[in-house]
Structure formats: C-alpha cells, structure tokens
C-alpha cells in the first residue's frame, strides 16, 4: 500500500492471523449451522465456541451475545428492539448529541414515531455528565443509549457512573462500544450495561459482522424477521466463518490490549511532539478528557478542512475529517458542533488521525512531518 493509513477508526485491515483463520473456515466449515447433519453440527460447534469466547471477553454469558451484520445493525436492533418491546411502559429515551449516526438516526426516527428523545449536551471535551443523565431520567424512560467512547474525538464516557445511576431505574442501558471494544477493557456486569454493540471490522476482523450483547432478562423485540436463528433474535443463516474470524480478532485484540494501548499513546506523543517541534499551531480536540488511545483529533487554525484532506492525501497521509459514515460528505461534524457550537472554527479545520495494526513509529513520524509541511503551506506560516 502506498502512503500511511491513519484512518483505523473508519475501518481496519484484517489481521493476517484472522485472515488465515477466516480463509480456512470459508472452505472447511461450510455447513449451515441450523442443519441437523454433521457439517451443520460442526458449524454449530464453531459458532458456540466463538460465542463463548466473545462473551468471556466482556464478562457476559454466551447466550447473551447476538451476532449481527455489523455495528449499525446492532445499534438499530438495540434501539428499535427496546422501543418495540417496551413502548407500553413508556416512550421516553435519553441519548447524547455525539452518538454515531446509527444511534442518532435511529433515535430521530423514534422521535417521529411518537417517542420523546432527550438529547444530552456534552462539554467542550466531548463528555457528558452523569448528573445530566440523573436529571433527565423520568418514570417513563425506557432506554438510555450513550456510547462507550466517541468515534471522532475519542472521548471515553462515564459509563460506570451512568450504570450506577440506572441501578434503581427500570430503563434499559445501551452503549455503542463499536469504537471502544478491543481498545479498552469493558466488563458489562461491572458497568451495569444491559445492551452493548460492537463490530468486527474496527478491530482487524472482517466486515459485515457485529454483535449485540443483551443481558439476560432485557426486553427486546427484533425489528427484522425470518428464520429462528440466534434464539429468534436475529434471523438469517449464521455467518459462521465471519463470526469465528471475529472471535479470533477479538482474542488478538484483547491479548495485545496493554501493549497497543502503550504503543498508541506513544504514537500520539510522537505526533504532537513532531508538530510542536515544527512550530505548527494546533489544538487537540478533547485534549483534556480521557480518550481512546488510538484516536487523535487535531484542529489546525488557519487551515480549511477540504484542502487539508486533499493535500494530506496527495502527500500519502490517509486520514479523515471525522466519521467516514457520513457517506462521503464533509458536512460539519455533529460531534464538534455539540462540543463547540455551530460557528466554531474547529468545525472547519479538524482532522482525525487514528492508529492501528501495521503502523510503526517511523510511519507516525513521517506522517507528522508531512502533516506539518502541509499545514504550514496551507496556513501560509
């Protein structure tokens, strides 16, 4: 690959070990896991093992894991599924203004269908306050959905505190952990989470695979229908090779958690030190908050995001302006709007650098130098 890929928060290359397992399983384990014959049973065994393995990593029971077609589907399943199952108990939902679009747009849709949505604000560091959750809670609140960590600026949210607040309240607590799973340890029981979404392609697994953790006893009515797979919670032939590859990717991610944490923190330092040394003016968005180690969102005053992205790309530094999911648009990031307001200059000059598999210190250093040169040229300094 030409250039340096610093967009691991958008998607990641498949880890070679995962690719090996995946390729092998695609040919050797082609039974339909719902078939009753031998190859079907072999596929079922692999499915069960993968489920148990993933469950163990987040402190869940195997039957609490529902495999899906990805993070968006997991989020949609959690939100629409809760709304459908619990609308008799209430129609109030609490979320934040910085959620991924899979949560944001699902909640907006419910807003149009007679549900009332409270959008919690964040501070300038992209953090929500547990007190705001407490104040927003009502008797008819059926769902609180707050992401574990933000995908654009990396801010880690006070999930444990929110979980504690919700202990005495019947609302289901969902967290979109797509960006956090495999990057920071998550124990669902410990954190008081009822529903948690994750995705394989963010952790060097294959695309098109995700899971939703559903705590035993948490009500959920799936919005899609078909065969009785996944205990009737998600219809469709189980993608066994993809699921096993996901489990492998998760295993590798967890084994290397501490090591990568340290490495990515050092990448951040290399990046910011190099920019400092080059005399480039920049600010770290969410710089004062606790953030995911692999996400570094920088604002470069005096630059313009479109020319910055184009020029960085030409220089071989592949980054993005925020989430890739706004489907190719460079609309101002809703996350930065929530943090700084609609008129802030950060909206027009912020770039997300995200680290991951295959990057060396030298790559990061080179990327920092190229970024510094590009920014200096564009800002005329």
């Amino acid at each position, binding site marked *: 690959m030409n250039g340096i890929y610093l967009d691991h928060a958008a998607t990641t290359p498949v880890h070679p070990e995962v690719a090996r397992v995946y390729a092998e399983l695609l040919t050797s384990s082609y039974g339909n896991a719902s078939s009753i014959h031998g190859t079907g049973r072999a596929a079922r065994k692999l499915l069960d093992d993968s489920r148990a393995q993933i469950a163990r990593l987040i402190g869940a029971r195997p039957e609490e894991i529902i495999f899906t077609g*990805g993070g968006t589907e997991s989020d949609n399943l959690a939100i629409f599924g809760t709304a459908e199952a619990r609308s008799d108990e209430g129609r109030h939902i609490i979320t934040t203004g910085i959620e*991924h679009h899979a949560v944001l747009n699902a909640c907006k849709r419910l807003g149009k269908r007679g549900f009332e949505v409270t959008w919690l604000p964040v501070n300038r560091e992209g953090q929500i306050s547990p007190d705001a959750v407490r104040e927003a809670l009502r008797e008819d609140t059926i769902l609180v959905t707050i992401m574990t960590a933000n995908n654009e600026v990396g801010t880690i949210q006070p999930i444990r505190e929110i979980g504690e607040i919700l202990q005495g309240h019947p609302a289901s607590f969902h967290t979109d952990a797509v960006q956090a799973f495999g990057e920071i340890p998550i124990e669902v029981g410990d954190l008081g989470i009822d529903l948690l979404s994750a995705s394989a392609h963010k952790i060097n697994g294959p695309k098109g695979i995700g899971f939703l953790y559903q705590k035993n006893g948490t009500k959920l009515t799936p919005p*899609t229908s078909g065969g009785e797979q996944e205990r009737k919670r998600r219809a469709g032939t189980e993608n066994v090779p993809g699921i096993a590859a996901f489990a492998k990717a998760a295993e590798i991610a967890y084994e290397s958690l501490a090591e990568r944490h340290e490495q990515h923190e050092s990448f951040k330092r290399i990046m910011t030190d190099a920019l400092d040394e080059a005399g480039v003016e920049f600010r770290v968005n969410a710089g004062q908050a606790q953030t995911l180690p692999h996400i570094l969102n920088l604002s470069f005053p005096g630059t313009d995001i479109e020319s910055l992205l184009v020029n960085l790309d030409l220089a071989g530094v592949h980054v993005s302006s925020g989430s890739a999911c706004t489907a190719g648009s460079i609309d101002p990031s809703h996350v930065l709007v929530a943090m700084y307001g609609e008129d802030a200059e950060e909206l027009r000059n912020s770039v997300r650098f995200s680290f991951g598999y295959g990057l060396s210190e030298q790559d990061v250093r080179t990327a920092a130098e190229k970024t510094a040169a590009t920014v200096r040229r564009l800002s005329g300094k």
Partner: protein
Amino acid sequence: MIYFDNSATTMPDDRVLDTFIKSSKAFFANPSSLHRLGIEADRLLARASEQVAELAGMSGGTVVFTSGGTEADNLALFGLARGNRAHGKKILVSAIEHPAILRSIPQLEKEGFEVGTIRVGRDGVIDLADLADQLTSETSVVSIMHVNNETGAIQPLEEAGGLIRAKSRAVFHSDAVQSFGKVAIPVSENGPDAISVSAHKIHGIEGSGALILKKRHGLEAILFGGNQQEGLRSGTVPVAHAAALAKAMRLAAEEIGRAPYAEWRNGLVRYFGDFDKVMVLGAEENAPHILSVAIRGIKGEIAVNALQEQDIYVSTSSACSSRSRKESHVLQAMGVPDDYRHGVIRISFGRMNSERDITRFKEVFTTFMETIERV
C-alpha cells in the same frame, strides 16, 4: 463426503474466495472515506454494483448490498410496503415464502397493512386464479418467491407479473435466493421489479446478499445510520463481499442450463419411482437442483442420519426451520398426506457434486430402504 445440502448453504468456490481475499487486502478501506484508499474502494464497489445489476437482468438498476438473503427480503417487504403506502396498504405474498417474508407479516399488520396469502396447489405452485382474485387497485406490493427452498417448485413469475400489471400498480418482488444461477429469472416487462439474492447459496461468502431493483420503486431503508448506499442501507459497506457476490453471481449465471442437475434430478425421480413408500414432492418441471421426497411412515431425521453414517449429507426440509422441528408450512400448504409429511428429505445439488455422488447415493438409499422394510 457427498454434500447434497446445497440449498442450506454451499461451499465457496475457490475463484470467489480469490476475489474476496484479494479485494479484502487491496481495498480494505472504508468506501465512504474521502482519501484515495476510500475512493478506490468506492470505485470497486460501484463496479460490483453495476455487475450485480447487470447479472440480475436489471442493468442500470438499484443494488442494495445486505448482510444476506433474510435482510434483503426484510428490506424488500418492509421497505417497499412502507415506501408505497400512498398506493395502497394491501400486500400479497405466497403461502410458501421463506420465513424471512412470512414472519414479517405480523409486524406489517401491526403497522396497518393488510396482508393476503396466495394459495398453492399440491404441486407446490401458486394458484394464479387465487392471485388474480386477491389483486386490487390498492395492492401495493406482491412478493412471490421464484424457486421454493423446500421443494424446488418454480413459480410462474411471468404469468403472475402479467396479472399484477393488469390489475394493480403493485411493486413485484421475488425472493430469488434459491433460483439465481439455476433457473433463469424472467427479465421481461412482466418479470419482477426487485429480487433478493444470497451469496452463500451460490458458492459465495456467508453474510452477504443483495436486493436488486429495476429502479428505486419508493424503497425505504430499514437500517438507519450513516446513510450509506444512497441512504437505503446504513452500515459500512463490505466492499470485498460486494465484489465476491458479483463474482459468485457471474459464475452461477454462466452455469444456467449447463450444469447436469436436471439429468441427475430426472434420474433420481425415476429411481425413487421404484419405491412404493417414496413420494416425489412437487411438479416435474421443478428446479433442477432441488429434489424433495417423502418416505411413508418414518421420520425424515432417520433417513438423514442413516445417510450421514455413510458420509452423505441431505436435510429434512429447510435448514432454517429444521432445528425447530416444527411442521413445514410449505408441506402443509401443499397438502402432503399425513403419513408422508414427517418423512421428508431434501436433496440439493451444487457445483462440487458429480455423477458418481448420485450413483453412491442410490446404493446407500436402497440399502436404507431395505433396512426399514425389514424392521
């Protein structure tokens, strides 16, 4: 091993795997990313999309890549019903649809739609007169599968389409998951407006499928998020899956009429004709790759297990419901006699089978029948 359960899932073709692995590596980037790697991935995606539309006989149409056949069916039914409310709130589906369609009915009814089911005859083919009777100007969506997954019965899509066009403005969807690459899908004006396909049924990669439409036909999304795929299906698009689906569809399309399935099937139909206790289900003109037979007085599982001991894999009915041990809705709809209904086995062929597999199957099955005759 002899794998005769290709209607449940198939072994991926090496050529498809090759496309999948190569594009997974070279085009791993998020196609929504604006950098060069993202743009290159997006270009591959666009090419795959064009090819898929073309292979479906819907060149220039709309392709929505999904996580599989179930999602494609759900998207078609919910998305077209909701998006065409203005035309009417009446939906028609056949009685033998896959659960991905049938189990969507209660939710549609909850949303105020009126869903009618079209009867089938003993041959497992829909009753066109019943369809004609139920069609009204308020019918907005009709969904009729092309080839039934349990019996292989081919549905008369063109005739159905003619009635639908004459009597309504309904969008015509067909679940072509079992038929693609086996039975040509009518592409005339009376052919379906939209079809669902699944990669893993045509030697592709599991977890991948598509809904293909002649045009958008008012389709609404059922997944919400980053508005990928023109807002019709949110979620990072698995580009390698899309490329591999196009490849699998191309290989399958090339095989239509050329694979020896019909010959094998006819040979087996003749062979089963010699057994008093065995009834071949469905019409003679059924899809060439699926053959379901019912054995009187035994449970299908007995036959499945006996064959499996000899390393031959068949299934009872559809895999999706075989674990639930519920009675098949398709067999019920066809009116299969009680003493046969529990003894159904489905034999389905794929690219990896050979003539020798058929010969071996006959030997083993004959021995099995002799055994049950004795006890």
